[in-house]
């Protein structure tokens, strides 16, 4: 059954749903078109699947279109994606031509007639050249804080034509002559990944994953990537293990089709060795319920990244009432309030110290978990995201 805005009354802060209806009066009847590059897979599509019906429910005529292209186009935008996140790429003129041409073709195919156009990420950014009406906003979901300059300069020629840009963190912002707004991403508390589970469901999932619940569980959920420092997490666990019996679960995915992921997974498995209390799980991308169960079963959740985009796994764990120990990187620093909802750390030793502290302080853990959940309720739920988009629409149309 489709989830409705009313369903969020039980999980969002008191008064939120009424506030959203009131706020939407300011943009009621306005049209909004979202354009991105995929209908399924990835965080942007996941959030749009929920946000578009919610926008319509509050009176915005919201639509969502997906840009279509061929192999050369996707090769180009994949290279863009990597280069904008700092990895050197080979991008040929032919690829750039495919990018420009694909945007031109899509501009002919799509009805770009909304009062507010929200264009997501680099793939459809060049649609701006075919603008006839409306306010155009470029919504950048990726970390462009240290881009390969020539690729950013290519993209920038389009971005500067927009009325505004939106980034997920201040440090992702660029030098641009247009207003740049800050909107954090969000989690959906009613999705498979975050909805409430019964203890029986949690037990069943952990049983299937062959993880006994006989001792405290330390958990890190993230793809096998060196920036997530999974080997550092194992080192921290080893320090903790000297005096505290516990299990460590490293749950990730994506290693199958990613050569670097495979190499990192092999490193992690080697570091885990024969320790029966270290569980390395390579999960499929749709293992939402299993991840949900793992987070609920965990005693402490780690996200010991040394470099991070936003790191929404932190908010996911906090939503389940868990204190999180995270690397002081990217969006982790805005999700964890130090010493209140968890700890940010800068070293293996720092992580080990905080794990030991929390394992031996059940009351602190309990209180931090409660505060973490409430902090997410106020700041990182999809209802806040809806509020931000409604405000953004209002602001850009009214002289934003």
């Amino acid at each position, binding site marked *: 059954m489709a989830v409705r805005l009313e369903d969020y009354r039980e999980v969002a802060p*008191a008064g939120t749903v009424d506030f959203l209806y*009131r706020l939407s009066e300011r943009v009621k009847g306005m049209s909004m078109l979202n354009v991105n590059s995929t209908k399924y897979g990835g965080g942007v599509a996941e959030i749009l699947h929920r946000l578009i019906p919610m926008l319509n429910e509050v009176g915005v005529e919201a639509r969502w279109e997906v840009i279509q292209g061929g192999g050369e186009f996707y090769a180009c935008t994949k290279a863009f994606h990597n280069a904008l996140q700092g990895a050197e790429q080979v991008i040929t003129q032919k690829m750039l031509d495919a990018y420009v041409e694909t945007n031109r073709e899509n501009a002919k195919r799509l009805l770009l007639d909304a009062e507010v156009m929200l264009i997501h990420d680099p793939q459809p950014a060049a649609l701006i050249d075919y603008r006839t009406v409306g306010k155009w906003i470029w919504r950048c979901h990726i970390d462009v804080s240290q881009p390969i300059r020539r690729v950013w300069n290519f993209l920038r020629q389009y971005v500067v034509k927009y009325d505004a840009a939106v980034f997920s963190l201040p440090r992702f912002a660029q030098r641009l002559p247009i207003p*740049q707004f*800050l909107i954090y991403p969000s989690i959906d508390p009613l999705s498979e990944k975050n909805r409430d589970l019964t203890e029986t469901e949690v037990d069943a999932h952990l049983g299937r994953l062959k993880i006994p619940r006989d001792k405290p569980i330390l958990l890190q959920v993230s793809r096998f990537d060196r920036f997530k420092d999974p080997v550092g997490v194992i080192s921290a666990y080893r320090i903790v293990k000297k005096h505290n019996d516990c299990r460590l679960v490293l749950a990730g995915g994506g290693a199958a089709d990613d050569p670097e992921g495979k190499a990192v997974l092999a490193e992690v498995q080697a570091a885990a060795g024969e320790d029966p209390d270290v569980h390395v799980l390579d999960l499929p991308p749709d293992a939402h319920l299993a991840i949900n169960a793992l987070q609920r079963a965990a005693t402490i959740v780690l996200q010991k990244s040394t470099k991070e985009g936003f790191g929404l796994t932190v908010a996911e764990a906090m939503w389940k009432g868990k204190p999180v120990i995270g690397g*002081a990187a990217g969006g982790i620093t805005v999700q964890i*309030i130090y010493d209140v909802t968890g700890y940010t750390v800068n070293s293996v030793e720092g992580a080990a110290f905080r794990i030991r502290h929390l394992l031996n302080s059940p009351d602190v853990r309990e209180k931090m978990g409660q505060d973490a959940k409430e902090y997410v309720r*106020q700041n990182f739920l999809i209802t806040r995201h809806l509020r*931000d988009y409604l405000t953004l629409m209002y602001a850009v149309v009214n002289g934003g």
Partner: protein
Amino acid sequence: MKAAEGKVFEFIGCVELRQILGKKAEDEKQLLDLLEEVPLDSVYHHTHEYFLRHKYILGPYPNDFANWAAIQVRDRVLGERLGVLDPYDFASLEALRDEIIAVIDDHLTKLRMIPRVGYGEPFHFIQSRIVTVPMGITARTLEEFRGALAGVDASSIYFHAFEARMRLNRRDGDFVFWIREALGLQELADRLANTDPYMFSLEQLRARLLGLLDEALAKGGDGRGGSA
């Protein structure tokens, strides 16, 4: 606040749209220099709208500057000195800005090296646009007011307790003003005015205000107590 003009209190909520100014400080000297040039709206954002972003719990200190110094730079002394600043003590945002600058400047003159973020995040200056939203909730009596305050979106508490003070220049905020002027409840108004909003998250402030209202209602029924 239309409520102050008549007997009816109308609750107004608000939402902020954060604008990134593209100015960042990697050390405390840069913070000082940028503080001198950013718009006052940005100072307001980091010292007042902090509360709108922390409806349920505050961080260690009640403003972004103090938290950055203490947590990202790991300079606890500056964090403590900035954290104790009371925005109430300043007649204007310009005066508050001057004091923050003076505190950082004084701190730096006592140090041989300028503290900077080693492993932490730089300070990014932000400013906000506030969009107000009439909540469609009104109160004519203290009892109605208490009921509405209990369920209204927390942004409404921010708007009437903080935004009204600094931006709209209503020294005690809208709640106190209405209770004093429209209901004539001087003693209760004084007790509410004595609550320091800068020490609470919005939800904590709501709980505290509700406690004071409940006491007044229990005492006098209409909240007038003996001194109205």
